[in-house]
């Protein structure tokens, strides 16, 4: 009973305070002290964070090699598009990559495409997640326009994304011995196990007149076609990297890695670049100084501002809490 009444009274009091607009409140006043303190605090937080991040990024060793032009034979360079579209010409090509710093396994192999609009609206929506999960059991492939069916039979996997699957392949040889490339577990687990069906096999794929990119082995279920899964996680920007595999051996300084690649994929039509990247990884990820730099910059500018404000505070102290600073009082003095 008593608690009830108390609660009732408490509620009434709260409502009274609400209607009379006198709820207890904290009133922050941004005095110079606070401004300086907060800037200092920011500096103190962000400079170390930035340095740690930068260090992580610096630990990462990365070798990048652009191969799209060099892999086209000299005579064909005038018309790279017809070269790449001519199936009769062999597309193999060898590249040499020199390791300038010790690289600890696992070394990640990425291919990087530039000017490739994987985030174009027409491209992004041209897929059917239901079909990827259920295969031919799922018939509605209208979302896969314009690559939804061939010969009146649905394509699995349908859509532009799958159709344009990247199909350059890479082999790595060090000192005459082939480096083993692990191509398993390159896609996010959530994609593999939930978005691509275990019992869905490619069907009627790349059978049409126009062949975009790589073909798929119809014997392997989609959930194991990791190249496809990686490819189908569309990128955010028109310049992107995708994981190709892992070298699970360390590379020493001055090792030369020979890359035998099949230069199948057409980026010449639209002037895209193709790059191959070998990179180690830190706890934070690949080589990317941006975060570190941004943190350090934010921290440093905070510190600088704090110092500037401090100097100002010492030099031109504004009268705080002074009645005479109120404009109507000032006016009465001048007038």
């Amino acid at each position, binding site marked *: 009973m008593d608690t009830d009444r108390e609660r009732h009274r408490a509620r009434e009091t709260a409502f009274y305070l609400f209607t009379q607009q006198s709820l207890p409140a904290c009133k922050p006043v941004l005095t110079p002290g606070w401004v300086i303190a907060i800037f200092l605090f920011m500096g103190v937080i962000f400079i170390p964070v930035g340095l740690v991040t930068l260090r992580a990024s610096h630990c990462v060793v990365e070798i990048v090699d652009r191969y799209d032009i060099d892999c086209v034979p000299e005579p064909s360079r005038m018309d790279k598009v017809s070269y790449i579209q001519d199936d009769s010409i062999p597309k193999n090509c060898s590249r040499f990559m020199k390791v300038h710093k010790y690289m600890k396994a696992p070394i990640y192999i990425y291919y990087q495409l530039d000017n490739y609009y994987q985030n174009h609206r027409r491209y992004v929506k041209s897929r059917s997640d239901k079909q990827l999960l259920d295969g031919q059991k799922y018939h509605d492939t209208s979302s896969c326009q314009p690559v939804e069916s061939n010969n009146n039979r649905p394509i699995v996997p349908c859509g532009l994304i799958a159709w344009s699957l990247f199909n350059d392949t890479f082999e790595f040889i060090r000192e005459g011995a082939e480096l083993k490339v692990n191509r398993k577990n390159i896609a996010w687990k959530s994609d593999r196990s939930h978005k691509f069906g275990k019992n869905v096999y490619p069907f009627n794929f790349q059978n049409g007149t126009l062949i*975009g990119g790589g073909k798929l082995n119809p014997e392997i279920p989609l959930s194991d076609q990791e190249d496809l899964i990686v490819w189908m996680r569309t990128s955010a920007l028109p310049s992107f990297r995708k994981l190709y595999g892992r070298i699970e051996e360390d590379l020493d300084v001055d090792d030369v890695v020979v890359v035998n690649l099949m230069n199948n994929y057409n980026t010449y039509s639209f002037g895209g670049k193709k790059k191959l990247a070998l990179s180690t990884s830190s706890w934070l990820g690949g080589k990317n100084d941006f975060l570190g730099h941004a943190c350090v910059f934010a921290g440093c500018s905070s510190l600088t501002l704090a110092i500037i404000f401090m100097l100002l505070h010492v030099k031109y102290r504004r009268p705080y809490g002074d009645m005479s600073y109120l404009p109507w009082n000032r006016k009465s003095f001048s007038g």
Partner: protein
Amino acid sequence: MSGWDNIRSSTRSQQGRSHSLNQREPSRTVTLGRVQPQAPAFRTIYCNDRDANFAHRYRGNSVSTTKYNFFTFLPKGLYEQFRRVANLYFLMVSILSATPYSPVHPVTNVVPLSLVLLVSLIKEAFEDWKRFQNDMAINSTPVDVLQDQRWESIPWKKLQVGDIIRVKQDGFFPADMLLLASTNADGVCYIETANLDGETNLKIRKALERTWDYVTPEKACEFKGEVQCEQPNNSLYTFTGNLVIDNQTLPLSPNQILLRGCSLKNTEFVVGVVIFTGHETKVMMNSMNVPSKRSTLERKLDKLILTLFGTLFTMCLIGAIGSGVFIDRKYYFLGLSKSVEDQFNPNRRFLVVLLTMLTLLTLYSTIIPISLYVSIEMVKFIQSTQFINKDLNMYHAETDTPALARTSNLNEELGQVEYIFSDKTGTLTRNLMEFFKCTIGGEIYGTGMTEIERGVAERKGIKVQEVPTSINSVREKGFNFDDVRLMRGAWRNEPNPDACKEFFRCLAICHTVLPEGDESPEKIKYQAASPDEAALVLAAKHFGFFFYRRTPTMIYVRESHVERMGKIQDVSYEILNVLEFNSTRKRQSVVCRYPDGRLVLYCKGADTVIYERLVGGSDDLKKVTREHLEKFGSAGLRTLCLAYKDLAPDVYESWNEKFIQAKSSLRDRERKLDEVAELIEKDLILIGATAIEDKLQEGVPDCIETLSRAGIKMWVLTGDKMETAINIAYACNLLNNEMKQFIISSETDAIREVEERGDQVEIARFIKEEVKKQLKKCLDEAQQYFHSVSGPKLALIIDGKCLMYALDPSLRIMLLNLSLNCSSVVCCRVSPLQKAQVTSLVKKGARKITLSIGDGANDVSMIQAAHIGVGISGLEGMQAVMASDFAIAQFRFLKDLLLVHGRWSYIRLCKVVTYFFYKNLTFTLTQFWFTFYTGFSGQRFYDDWFQSLYNVIFTALPVIIVGLFDKDVSSSLSKRYPELYKEGIKNMFFKWRVVAIWAFFAVYQSLVFYYFVTVSSSTSQGSSGKMFGLWDVSTMAFTCVVVTVNLRLIMICNSITRWHYISVGGSIVAWFLFIFLYSGIMTPYDRQENIFWVIYVLMSTFYFYITLLLVPVAALLGDFLYLGVQRWFFPYDYQIVQEIHKDEADDSGRTDLLGIDNQLTPDEARSYALSQLPRELSKHTGFAFDSPGYESFFASQLGVYAPQKAWDVARRASMRSKPKPKPNKIN
């Protein structure tokens, strides 16, 4: 009077034609502003015969003011909603997003739209429900109706035309009815029309003599008659009709009609026949829909929205042109080689541009803040219902009236008011005249202190202690005089007892007051044309000269202590002549004959006119009295000089002949009477002067002073005479003797001279010239003062006639320029229409925000003309309140309403609007930057649900909390530093500059969001070497946006309550909860599973946490720097006040800290003391006397029949040979 004649003549003409009624053509009656088409020109009502009336199907008496009913609610409500451009726009976008051109699922736009509509509809339904309940309560009020020779109680709504009903004392009339009989003698009843026109004085209605007897139910049920009358119309003051009884046709006039909304007073009960019911009653036909006002801030908001539309269009155009340029077959992976739909067809680039335009329109639709309007509405609704209506500081305990916000549209407008137009009577003053002081024979009596004196003393720093009133002091409404030297016959011992005696006799005899009620001093009531007169007679009563009876020729006074202490005797004075008061004479005289034959002329009037007519000699007395008059005047009292003169019989007789001659002359009677009066009103002997306090409403001077410090200019518009108005202006601190006053008056000799010649055209031309000349002179002078640095404050006083010409288009600009330079303006003798004209002159001409405050029907037009109308509620009628936007019980509450609620609402609304603008711009711009990197395809950056819930869930609540709770300084500080209000007048918080700063930071932040997140995620994240896709990046960016935008909100708060934490924290938590759930499930529903598991992938990397730390801070760094610099170098006034009172506890119990002067700096205090030094010339003596004609002045303006005139009162007295004791149940 002429209006009255018209009515009567029309009645007569109808009577004459009554036999040929059927041939009468349908007439059109033109009434105030509305044309009423009327099918048959009359209606016939069979009294007491429901069956006969049934055929006519008159409307019932139930009244409905609801907007919707059960069936019309949805269609009508939706229609109302879609009349808003923003909603319509979103409807269009929603439809557009269902087409294939849309990059987003329809849900993106449909969900916010339907939520917004739902909230709005619920609000509408709630408001309509309240109206419905109100109607129900009124409709079921019981009323006595005659059924089977008995009075049966039935609810109002069951009432029908033709019913005979009984209304008891203090009851309201349920419908317009014809008065048949009253319990009072002569079929008279008294009604109060306060609900209709705000006048509280009782009006008399009189039944036709033929129907006086139908009082009892037995008798009443015998009544059979037909009423033929006009069709229902909205004219309150006219009625034409006939009552046909036993083949006898009796004309009816407004005098027999009791209107719905009035109440019965001083009458036990009346019996009447219902003629108009329900919506056909005159009061209901008058309640037209008040055009809803929109606040200036909202209108500016519309401009902002338009700008946003412009921005949206530009963004779409840029994107669309980009897409036209971009699209190319070479991007073979887009599958453009075969037949391609139009939107991506490289062969039809122009079409691509057009269609992409549509695409982008749906994509960027979030730039228009859809929930803005509904949020604002919600905030304002709570502000008005919970804060304004429930503020205890605006609650008037005596009348049990809280403040009432009748509209919630204008809350923030209250924070920007620059001009207040105030009515005088009932608003500034209580319309309660109290006898306060007097001077008799050069001696001041009365110890009280007026509020203005107290204020002056307080400003000087003198502590005023309450004067202890003597124990035996008499107090009555109208008499607030305390001085033992005059009471209970003590005046006999004063230095000049004879003067005292004449003084009291003059008070008791020289007036046109009519006594009512019991002839005992306790119970008597005085009916007077002006409350001043009543106060004077009342004073005489308390001094022992009790005026108790009046006959046409005699005045009876019960005099005490005249011959010796304690002796009481009844004395009758024969009244020979009454020389009436008018505005030119400014005096009133009575010639009377004592029982002993002594002939005396008593005269009272303005000091100027009395002094002119004094007999020579006794200069000392005149000088002392004049000093006293000035003293009274500067104390805000209304003064009258009293004088007398003994007449020799022969002188009188010869004069009386001239008087009678003048009185019976047919031409120029008024002027001739004045001339004759001049002959006898000379060589007067000064007795003394009275000082009446026109009781100001509580706290008025203080409130006005505070408001003027807040930069608000006060205009008093009153129907009173110039002297009265000036007096009140003095009393409430609007005028003082240091001010330079410009007086433009039509009461100059030159004008009067021309007027006497009587040529209307010439008069108009002359006055116009004169006004022009005066205006020009004043303006030149004003500008001189204005340019000099420390000139005096200026004040303008103008009367209604001059104003009429000054409002002429050619002079209007001059008037405006002059008046805008003045810190206070007093307009006297203005009509209701002029009040409205002046208001709209300032509203439209100066483009300043105006507020009108008034209490009566004559203020309605002014209240409606101003940006904000405030009605005084509680005592007076409802008309002003019904037309107003806010109703408060006392003028002084204006301080709280404007300085506290208005200011807060304004600041809050500005914050809400600019913040909305910022958050939507920021969000949409990130989309915009992304468009550049998608080949301008219009690919969405965010998931559909992110986008649709962004506005309605993830960022909705905190901004409402800010709109409700943000307080820069406490309410007591708001009142203590009224100057803070100036920030609102200057619109400091919603300038384009402010918006531009927000826009700048929105651009900056969106760039930070977009580039920081995309650039930093371009390599692998986490140690697994795997890469992020589009949806990982966008979810990251969205998380940053939600967190940052919510944190930014905290930065704009001046006070942070628990609710801020809860709402901001809640919004962020809501986002995370949502994304945890949303990305954790796969739905069987056919959609792309883009977001599946994304947040878990993100959260498995360190990258997520570092970015979440860095991006909001980097984004807010700029804002923080701006805030710091702004406060440091360009602080707002409120910020300085905040700093001064930084360490004080919050609102110590909200007690009023009215101490204005304890904060003065020494210099200020000295300068103030200097300014308060006594000056030599103080011209103001305070003469004021409401002319009895001023009511009829309004009446003639309105075409109103106004029966209450001084001579009417006298005539009524003369008709009643012997005042019989009436059953007076009030006391």
